[in-house]
């Protein structure tokens, strides 16, 4: 039971104590001379039980009568926990993840709405009730263990801010669930907009929750209205902007839900907030996505932030980008020249080296047998044109380089044993299958090539570039974790990228060596842009670590072990240590540009992003939420409006009138009980 005016309830308790005090104080007897106490003692003997009962009944009736009047005036009402259930234990789960940054169509912040509900709910707690706070922003945590200090609870609720990390509602709710052995009733009050970014309704609930949630009453704040139109930056990347200040551009993909208007401003800012570029985006009516290439200034851009004007969800309107192209790539070609190597008999290594000449790339060559002995420690890209000659040490180093975020390009070797595939699979943590085709068929490329990330900068040009290329000798290549980069017209991959099972890095596997004995590709225009783009974009892709996600432990690779991740945003300084496995010791707390400072003194920028899906404020249908939660329980929503809530309490579930009637009943009972002791005179005389 709760009270609209808890203070009056306490006063009622005090008032109820008054009859008890008076009863005790006024029990000073008046001396009365009586002829004989014989009959009185007999009466007392008869009365001994009844006298006690009567006295206490009267006391109880008086106490209850007065107490009930006070309680009635305090406006008691039945909460969801019901009457007589003892102290409540209320676990408040606050969704302070990215979705709670939403602003409602009327301009009210969602947090404010939720705070009002929570504070009102906390005000209904009685002095003996305990409350706890669980925050759902990743990683979820119990901020306040159950406490009787309601002021701390209120303070914690008022301190609610939206954090630019995903929510982990399930994790938070699990923290709020009682342990399996505990069966005490518990209330869990969820304050969340239950938007798409918070609720993964496709994800099943743990089976063990069913038993644990048996004594739990689930409540949540009222459903939010349909979200206001929102748009967000889906993807942004720097296209062709290198350290030699060639003209580059920023490609931005923006999506929207609802009608956000006809146009938007996009701004590119440096890490310290200076505007580097600006552009307008014109929306086509009814189109949910837009792309814009924004010219960048001819200045080296190491990192930047792309921003839109904040709207209903401000946290998805900025995105940080790191331009890895500003650092000259270091490429090591591990191969062996032919003894009779000439222009018409260049090996794959030679052709690839020539393709790099026009690019801002540092190229060195290394004999395969030296890779394990004197590995190129600072190499970004390793191109293996003679994998068949690598020894065990060479494979070990290659594997480490791959897992460390390096890019490995492997071309098959004509006329050599393919046993190296086994070494590759064993050492590198990839599963690749490769077998030579001996059908002698000349193969051509598919007219429409895949639009992958690796060759994204080439765009539709790749179709034109691959069209004249023919391959006389090729290998069948396949892998279970691969993306096709180039495809033959038969649909089989001509080049594919493979990610290792553990760690980072990227392996590019060609189905043919770029040698004239196998293909005319070295003579075609495809050769140069293909390898330059592979080096440029492949390095960025390999270092997937150049983009890390907020709210998660970042996997930065072995080379980062022992280093630190430092925020470069001057407004919020934060340093996160990196453990020996190359992982951050705590989740990345906010998006922006971070600097990875390795133990060897080298540093490189890393962009931390908030997953746009995790920040999605897209509406989730109530029936979907009900269906999702049905194995565990039913969410009961709080009243929508403050006044309506209190009025409904008064009108529908207030106990004031019944208690007043009950008090009246007690007082009438007290009067009757008192009269019950009225004298019954006996016959005075007998004739």
């Amino acid at each position, binding site marked *: 039971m709760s009270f609209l005016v808890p203070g009056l309830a306490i006063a009622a308790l005090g008032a109820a104590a008054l009859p008890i005090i008076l009863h005790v104080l006024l029990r000073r007897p*008046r001396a009365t001379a009586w*002829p004989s106490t014989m*009959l*009185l003692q007999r*009466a007392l003997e008869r009365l001994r039980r009844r006298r006690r009962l009567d006295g206490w009944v009267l006391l109880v009736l008086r106490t209850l009568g007065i107490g009930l009047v006070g309680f009635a005036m305090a406006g008691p009402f039945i909460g969801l926990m019901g009457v007589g259930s003892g102290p409540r234990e209320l676990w408040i789960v606050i969704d302070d993840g990215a979705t709670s940054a939403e602003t409602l169509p009327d301009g009210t912040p969602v947090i404010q709405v939720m705070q009002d509900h929570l504070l009102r709910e906390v005000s209904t707690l009685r002095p003996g009730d305990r409350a706890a706070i669980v925050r759902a922003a990743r990683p979820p945590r119990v901020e306040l263990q159950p406490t009787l200090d309601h002021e701390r609870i209120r303070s914690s609720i008022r301190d609610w801010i939206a954090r630019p990390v995903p929510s982990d509602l399930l994790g938070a709710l699990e923290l709020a669930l009682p342990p399996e052995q505990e069966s005490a009733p518990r209330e869990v009050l969820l304050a969340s907009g239950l938007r798409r970014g918070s609720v993964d309704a496709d994800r099943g609930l743990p089976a063990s929750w069913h038993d644990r949630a048996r004594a739990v009453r689930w409540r949540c704040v009222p459903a939010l209205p349909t979200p206001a139109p929102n748009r967000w930056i889906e993807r942004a990347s720097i296209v062709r902007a290198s350290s030699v200040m060639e003209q580059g551009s920023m490609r931005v993909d923006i999506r929207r839900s609802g009608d956000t208007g006809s146009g938007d401003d996009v701004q590119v800012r440096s890490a310290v907030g200076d505007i580097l570029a600006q552009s307008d985006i014109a929306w086509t009516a009814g189109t949910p996505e837009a792309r814009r290439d924004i010219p960048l200034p001819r200045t080296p851009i190491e990192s930047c932030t792309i921003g839109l004007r904040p709207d209903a969800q401000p946290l998805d309107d900025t995105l940080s980008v790191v331009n890895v192209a500003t650092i000259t790539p270091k490429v090591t070609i591990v191969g062996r020249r032919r003894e009779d190597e000439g222009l018409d008999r260049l090996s794959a290594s030679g052709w690839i080296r020539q393709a790099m000449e026009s690019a801002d790339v540092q190229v060195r060559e290394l004999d395969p047998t030296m890779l394990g002995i004197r590995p190129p420690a600072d190499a970004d890209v390793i191109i293996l044109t003679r994998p068949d000659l690598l020894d065990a040490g060479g494979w070990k180093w290659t594997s480490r380089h791959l897992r460390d975020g390096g890019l490995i390009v492997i071309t098959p070797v004509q006329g050599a044993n393919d046993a190296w595939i086994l070494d590759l699979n064993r050492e590198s943590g990839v599963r690749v299958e490769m077998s030579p085709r001996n059908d002698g068929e000349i193969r051509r490329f598919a007219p429409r090539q895949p639009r992958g990330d690796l060759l994204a900068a080439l765009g539709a040009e790749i179709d034109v570039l691959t069209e004249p290329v023919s391959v006389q000798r090729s290998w069948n290549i396949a892998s279970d974790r691969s993306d096709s980069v180039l495809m033959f017209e038969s649909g089989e991959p001509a080049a594919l990228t493979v990610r290792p099972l553990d760690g980072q890095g990227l392996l590019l596997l060609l189905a043919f060596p770029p040698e004239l004995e196998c293909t005319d590709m070295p003579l075609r225009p495809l050769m140069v842009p293909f390898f330059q783009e592979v080096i440029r974009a492949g390095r960025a892709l390999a270092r997937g670590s150049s983009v890390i996600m907020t709210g998660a432990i970042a996997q930065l690779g072995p080379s980062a072990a022992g280093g630190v991740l430092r925020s470069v945003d001057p407004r919020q300084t934060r340093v996160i240590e990196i453990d020996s496995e190359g992982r951050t010791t705590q989740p990345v707390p906010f998006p922006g540009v971070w600097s990875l400072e390795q133990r060897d003194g080298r540093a490189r920028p890393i962009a931390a992003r908030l997953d746009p899906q995790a920040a999605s404020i897209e509406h989730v249908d109530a029936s979907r939420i009900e269906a999702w939660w049905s194995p565990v329980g039913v969410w009961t929503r709080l009243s929508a409006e403050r006044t309506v809530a209190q009025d409904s309490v008064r009108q529908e579930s207030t106990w004031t009138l019944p208690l007043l009637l009950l008090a009246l009943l007690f007082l009438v009972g007290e009067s009757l009980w008192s009269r019950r002791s009225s*004298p019954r005179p006996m016959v005075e005389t007998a004739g």
Partner: protein
Amino acid sequence: MTAPLRAEAYLAPETLAQLAPFELRARMLVEGLGMGRHASPRQGQAVEFSEHRPYTPGESLRHLDWKVFGRSDKLYLKRYEQETDLDVLVLVDASNSMRFGSIAVKSGWGGTDAGRDSLQWTKFDCAAAITVAIAHLCLEQRDRVGLEVFAESSRAGVRRSGSHGQWRSMVQALASVRVGGVADMPRAIDHGISTFNARGLLFILSDFQQPLPPIQQALGKARFRGHDVVLVRIMDRQELRFPLEGFRRFEDMEGAESVEADAETLRPAYLEALHAFDAELERMARSLSCDLVRVDSHASVGPTLAALLSRRETAWRARRRS
């Protein structure tokens, strides 16, 4: 120096008027010494015809009823009852409980030790008024009457007599006796019946606020000796109705005991106990063939006694008819 006793102040004229039509009748045969109004167990000398009985040969023909012989040719002897005077002893309880009273003393009352200081009309005053009236009645019908005022022992006594100064002596004794202490009624009864030489009438005036079995035993002796016993239970109206309120400590007037209780709460149980005790007393009286009269001390003495006398006279007439 004490004021001279005004014996008339102890018997109100209206009481005299109320009792005038009645005679005090013994319920059984009494053995008086002189001629009186009460039936004697001895057959008298042509005093009052009692019955006929068949003649047995050899008997004296002195009391043969010749009229019956002439009419029926059968021999019947006439039997006569001798009427005698009555010995009456009034035992008055003068224990401390009899000092209890809850109204002011009645105007014109001569006063006793019990209510003299408090100016209350006590149970002893009521007992004294009844005793005086009974004594007057007895002496008026030439019976002998005596008085024994007792508490733990005999406090005052007036030997039975039918003389003209007897009534005054009794009034004097009642007016001057000290009232207090604890009553020992069995002892008083034993002492009282020991003064009788023949069957008599015993009045016991008390509030009977004591255990009944010893009293029953003593009364049993009295009844065994053929005495007629009238129990007069005198209670104050406050005792009968218990109209008290509030939390009180009731202090026993005859002892050191006290009872603390809420009067209103106690009232029902007290009245129940009173009813139960009264029923117990009545059972005892019935079992011993004693008369029991309950007197509210606030009420007038005359009607109460008149009711008693009327009842006894009715019983006497009924016995005569049978």
